């Protein structure tokens, strides 16, 4: 009871609610695991051990070590593979969002600030792209340009910029009509100065919210591409790739696909909750209180 009422107080005061704290801890744990995990438990894609293949979780291996989550089809430890995969998946997610938000914010601000033909062209392209299922677009582009780390990030960024562009444009239109923008003009501010000092600061909160919501989607999209064999090359461990490789073994070695699948689900759910909570708290319309 005491804990419960304390939580309520925290939430009603402007302290951080559980909706942020819990998922943030989980996401933080993932980041930590991705950063230091591979150092503690190294994964060598070349170190196969046929005698240890398809061992279930909690099995002692030939070299005496214990495999917590079992081994894959060529006898590599699944936990080590997942930790290495976390690093790749999180890095791809972050890089994609940075790239997508750069493209999206740039185009959205230009469209919203100057309007006219640029606005029409950019937003029509965005509308058309939104009408097309993003994973199909990703599959199409990935099949054309082939698998590599850079390409996966490019492909995913191409499917994500629209969301950022729309938010950036809407926010730019709102801010542009504020008096302080006119005031800056009467003080001799250039367009660049207004964009940097008036528009961009107001974009930070809403873009952060969008990025959080998108993060989970991007990680799932990367996993989907890897699952379809259009993601990263063999030899670079990813969750999607491991899930894909394990699906031939679902009947006799369920852990290969299941373990990274669970890890992926938990991360995506936590990031989703985090995004939703942040959106509720940082409603873009309130940023210039």
């Amino acid at each position, binding site marked *: 009871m005491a804990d419960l009422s304390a939580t309520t107080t925290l939430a009603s005061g402007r302290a951080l609610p559980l909706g942020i704290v819990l998922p943030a801890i989980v996401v933080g744990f993932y980041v930590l695991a991705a950063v230091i995990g591979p150092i503690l438990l190294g994964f060598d894609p070349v170190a196969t051990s046929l005698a240890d293949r398809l061992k279930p979780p909690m099995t002692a291996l030939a070299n005496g070590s214990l495999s917590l989550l079992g081994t894959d089809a060529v006898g590599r430890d699944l936990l080590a593979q997942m930790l290495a995969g976390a690093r790749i998946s999180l890095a791809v997610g972050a890089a994609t969002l940075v790239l997508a938000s750069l493209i999206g914010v740039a185009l959205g601000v230009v469209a919203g600030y100057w309007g006219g033909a640029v606005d029409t062209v950019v937003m029509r392209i965005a509308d058309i792209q939104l009408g097309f299922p993003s994973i199909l677009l990703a599959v199409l582009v990935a099949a054309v340009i082939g698998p590599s780390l850079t390409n996966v990030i490019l492909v995913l960024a191409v499917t994500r910029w629209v969301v950022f562009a729309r938010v950036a444009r809407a926010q730019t239109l709102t801010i542009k009509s504020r*008096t302080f923008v006119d005031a800056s003009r009467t003080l001799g501010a250039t367009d660049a100065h207004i964009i940097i000092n008036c528009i961009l600061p107001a974009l930070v909160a809403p873009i952060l919210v969008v990025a959080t919501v998108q993060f989970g989607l991007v990680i799932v999209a990367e996993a989907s591409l890897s699952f379809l064999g259009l993601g990263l090359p063999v030899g670079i461990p990813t969750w999607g790739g491991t899930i894909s490789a394990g699906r031939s073994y679902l009947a006799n070695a369920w852990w290969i696909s299941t373990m990274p699948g669970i890890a992926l689900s938990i991360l995506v759910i936590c990031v989703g909750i985090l995004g939703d909570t942040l959106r509720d708290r940082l409603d873009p319309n309130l940023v210039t*209180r």
Partner: protein
Amino acid sequence: MPPATPSERCLTVSDLAVGFAARGGTILALEDISFHVDAGETLSLLGESGSGKSVSAQAIMALLPDTAVVSSGTVRFDGKDLLALPRRETRRLCGTEMGMVFQDPLTALNPVFTVGDQIAELFRVRQGLGRRAAREAAADVIDTVGIPDARRRLGNYPHQFSGGMRQRLVIAMAIALKPRLLIADEPTTALDVTVQAQIMDLLGRLQREHNMAMLLITHDLGVVADVTDRVAVMYSGRIVETGDVRRVYDRPGHPYTRGLLASVPATAGGGKHQPLATIGGLPPNPQRRPQGCTFHPRCPFAQDICRTERPPMVDLGNGHGATCHFAREMVADDRLFA
């Protein structure tokens, strides 16, 4: 005060006409606007909302929205036609030569930077001062506009100031680079009555100290009387009367001015108590302005000629003029001002 010689002219607006693109053609928001402001002088643009006061200010400061079209006229500042200058050139004059104070101080400051940063940046970008020097200059200018403990408050954000203090900050930014022309667009409308007078005092003081030309845009006749040298009364996108503030208040040449003055409660010193008058009817829809004198449907003195012929600006002497067919009669009729 001796009449200003042309050399002291700061801002001259001639025959300015501004329209807004709308469905079914252009709506004229301003027509035949001509006035001038001299150094050290205050001109008030007086009128109801929608009369075109603010559009005039926007035209001068190049703040007109994209839908606006300047169809004729010139705005001369320092001998240069601002309307013909490239936008970049106009922006260069903004701040250093011309400044502007806005109606609502709550929204006129960037909420995401401290006031110190906002003001100091002006000095850094426009005057090339170093970080520390700019900070010093910012503190000085905040001190100038009467904000106590200026140095400490540099680090505060706009929302940490009261409404009156924020207007002082807006004024501080507008005069920071010592412009020669200050446009104040309803600078006291959003403020408490008690603060209004302080702000007007501050503007008056700054104007005197810097010998600025000031264009004051307001609907408040009381404010006009206190700080203004000359007044231009606007009605439905046109200037209907202009002249020295004393003369216009004492002997209005236009029935609209007269109506405005009559609608103000008599001050304690005025003596005579009259019932408070109002002007009947509403200003015309700018899309369907009446023929002849635009004020005739509301004018108690309207004659046939007012319905058909547009009145010219009638010169009433000493720079006083009014666009009324009967301006001279209005001024001469002492009975009316008994």
